[in-house]
């Protein structure tokens, strides 16, 4: 009985909604990134690694140049660079896309762990640096429910929501979007009409790097202001699950990320609810919830959703 009351408590708490939005934000960036890549037919499971690189670069920019905004720009550049590696191997050299992506994840973990000491002077985690200031909506009335809910959100949150619309626009209404969809379903057909399959795929993959990296940057300079080793903690994979759950559409990804964000927020609320009296030893088990949900989603929804037909298959230009 206690737990149901605790859940209701959470729904009545404005912080729950704020947490949902901030937990969904990095997922949404990465998920939209994955969308661009997958739509053109290139699987990119390296989102986890690129997010990590983005998180690292964000703080690095903030520490070395004194401005978190420079960190964000640095993160975008690094994300594109990492994605370029994946693109180069998978597209131009028809490497196995899963293996290439796994290599990038490993590289990201190794590189970020390795550079902690040389760049920041201490291993494991950095000090706290300037982060991107939140956008305060004072007019909502400090202390009100609405204010607590959305009155001081990071600009990243707004950006993520805007990106959902922008992604839809690009994919569904532009010439490039049509070509992306064609290349993702039947690259050979597009090739015979003179569409640059490699070019369109490079665009998709680079966009995934750009967006995933922004998602990682949010975790560091948008939320905590510091970087800790492996701080992405599986979010890149949850973002992939959100993409599948959302049936490879921007709107679907939005709802799926909100769902996962809510699961995360609920986890946090339940754990911090004093009247729930969960022993501290059981609490860690709550951390399982998002992963179990992902597992169920991936297993249960795969048959019912439709991924781009050419996804995961390298395309080789003939002759």
């Amino acid at each position, binding site marked *: 009985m206690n737990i149901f009351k605790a859940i209701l408590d959470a729904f009545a708490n404005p912080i729950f909604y704020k947490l949902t939005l901030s937990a969904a934000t990095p997922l949404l960036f990465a998920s939209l990134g994955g969308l661009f890549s997958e739509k053109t037919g290139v699987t990119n499971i390296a989102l986890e690694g690129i997010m990590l690189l983005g998180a690292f670069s964000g703080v690095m920019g903030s520490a070395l140049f004194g401005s978190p905004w420079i960190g964000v720009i640095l993160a975008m550049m690094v994300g594109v660079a990492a994605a370029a590696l994946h693109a180069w191997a998978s597209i131009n050299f028809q490497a196995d896309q899963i293996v290439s992506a796994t290599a990038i994840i490993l590289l990201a973990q190794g590189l970020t762990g390795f550079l902690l000491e040389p760049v920041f002077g201490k291993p494991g985690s950095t000090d706290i640096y300037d982060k991107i200031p939140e956008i305060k909506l004072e007019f909502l009335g400090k202390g009100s429910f609405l204010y607590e809910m959305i009155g001081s959100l990071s600009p990243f949150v707004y950006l993520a929501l805007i990106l959902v619309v922008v992604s839809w626009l690009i994919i569904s*209404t*532009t*010439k*490039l*979007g*049509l*070509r992306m*969809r*064609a290349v993702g*379903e*039947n690259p*050979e*057909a*597009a*090739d*015979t*009409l*003179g*569409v640059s399959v490699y070019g369109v795929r490079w665009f998709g993959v680079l966009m995934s790097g750009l967006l995933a990296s922004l998602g990682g940057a949010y975790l560091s300079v948008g939320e905590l202001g510091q970087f800790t080793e492996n701080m992405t903690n599986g979010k890149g994979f949850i973002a992939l699950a959100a993409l599948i759950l959302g049936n490879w559409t921007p709107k679907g990804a939005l709802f799926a990320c909100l769902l996962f964000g809510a699961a995360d927020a609920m986890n946090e609320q339940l754990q911090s609810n004093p009247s729930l009296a969960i022993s501290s030893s059981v609490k860690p088990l709550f951390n399982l919830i998002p992963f179990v949900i992902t597992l169920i989603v991936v297993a249960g929804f795969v048959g019912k959703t439709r991924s781009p*037909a050419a996804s995961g298959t390298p395309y080789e230009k*003939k*002759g």
Partner: protein
Amino acid sequence: MPFHIPQEEEYKDYAVVMKGIVKQFPRVLANDHVDLYVKRGEIHAIVGENGAGKSTLMNQLYGLYNADEGQFLINGNALLINNPKDAIAVGIGMVHQHFMLVGPLTVAENIVLGDEPTRMKSFFDLARARKEVKKISEEYGLKVDVDSKIEDISVGTQQRVEILKTLYRGADILILDEPTAVLTPQETEELFVVLRNLQNDGKTIIFITHKLNEVIAVSNNVTVMRGGKVTGQIPTSETTPRELANMMVGREVLLRVEKEKKEPGEKTLEVTGLKVNDNRGLPAVKGVDFEIRKGEILGIAGVAGNGQSELEEALMGLRKKEGGTVHFNGLDITTASPRDIREARMSHIAADRFKYAMVKEFTVAYNIALGRHYKQPFAEGGFLNHKNINAISNELVKKFDVRPTEIQNPAENLSGGNQQKMVVAREFDYNPLCMVVSQPTRGLDIGAIEFIHKTILELRREDVAILLISMELDEILSLSDRIIVMYEGEIMGEVKPHEVSLEELGLMMAGSTLEQARSEAHDE
């Protein structure tokens, strides 16, 4: 009047001149100094066996491959065609054998892809695309619904979309690669009408085919290729299918095999009310009944996509049956697994060789062991018996003339014909009581075709019950004892090969019942 080879001054009257084309692939010289002369406004056929180099030649004309050597002159102008965009720019369009269409996109989207009308340079103008496509559809009499998705329309309609694709881009020179492979006889006639209309409009048409009667029916001139070289150039009016076949193969060719009279034995395979769904869950086989007796070949005729592959898969346990029963020598095998079916002594030459019949990375020896790899003599107590595997493979490779004879060669290194012979050897060695044979000679050269037809007849002589599924009407007519026609998952009628005309068969393949076909054919 023999074929006229033009002088340089005359090139401007020729839509396409290709001179001295050489194209080398890692293991084969696909085009060996090939010359092609296509006059403007003519319908020109290129014939040859599979592997003769016809498609390779045309792919270079369309810019998908780049020639190693040689010259291209379009309307007298020498140019380089490095990619499809170049080809499209000089008015060349190509309709491939395997359609290059994007399933989930609409007809209009497919046609304008790569050359899309836009608003503000970036936004795709769907309204204008639809309008323009409708316009050329009406102009050339090629009816299509611009808003339907490709994956929902028929094969004949898809072909019309492919042709419209070329016309949308202002093609004056159309290349069609084996256009009738997927059409019924009637649809083929309709296509010829379209081609003649386009010719009247001033278009030049080059089509690749291996069907000699089509060459005679619609082309003005023919170029014959064999082994990468041109072995004949001749006006259509001055040649016959027999002469063309000889030029294609290089020797006298028997166009039909000799089949002996035989009384079939008792019932072996009995199929009742069989219902099977396709990959999208829609019914593909809608309640089919037939039986095959010992020593009898039952042919199933029909155009691709009418349920044959689903039927084939269901019979061998590779696809779930939604209803009906299958009995094999009295045994109910309706829900049997592929292994059980093979154990019952049914074997299978699959239509899709690459998908089903072989593992291309495995050696020839391992491919021959496939399906019996867990039992004697190929294995014992869970361990493979490599000595036996190799001995049996060597024997079969010799008997069935598979080349090269090296059994440790990965199967992917063999040519299509030899791969098929390997598959036939294996399935034959099962010593089956019943065999499902689907598209056994697709893509093979005449030598391999002759061999496989002989093997099938030998099986018939040994009292094996054979189900022959094929889209080559000649093959069905020459091998079958009885023929049934499948259309949209149903059987339209059963006939004996000498009691039915090609026209009647064609009508049944397009949806008429046997009675309707008979009466319609008589009306003419």
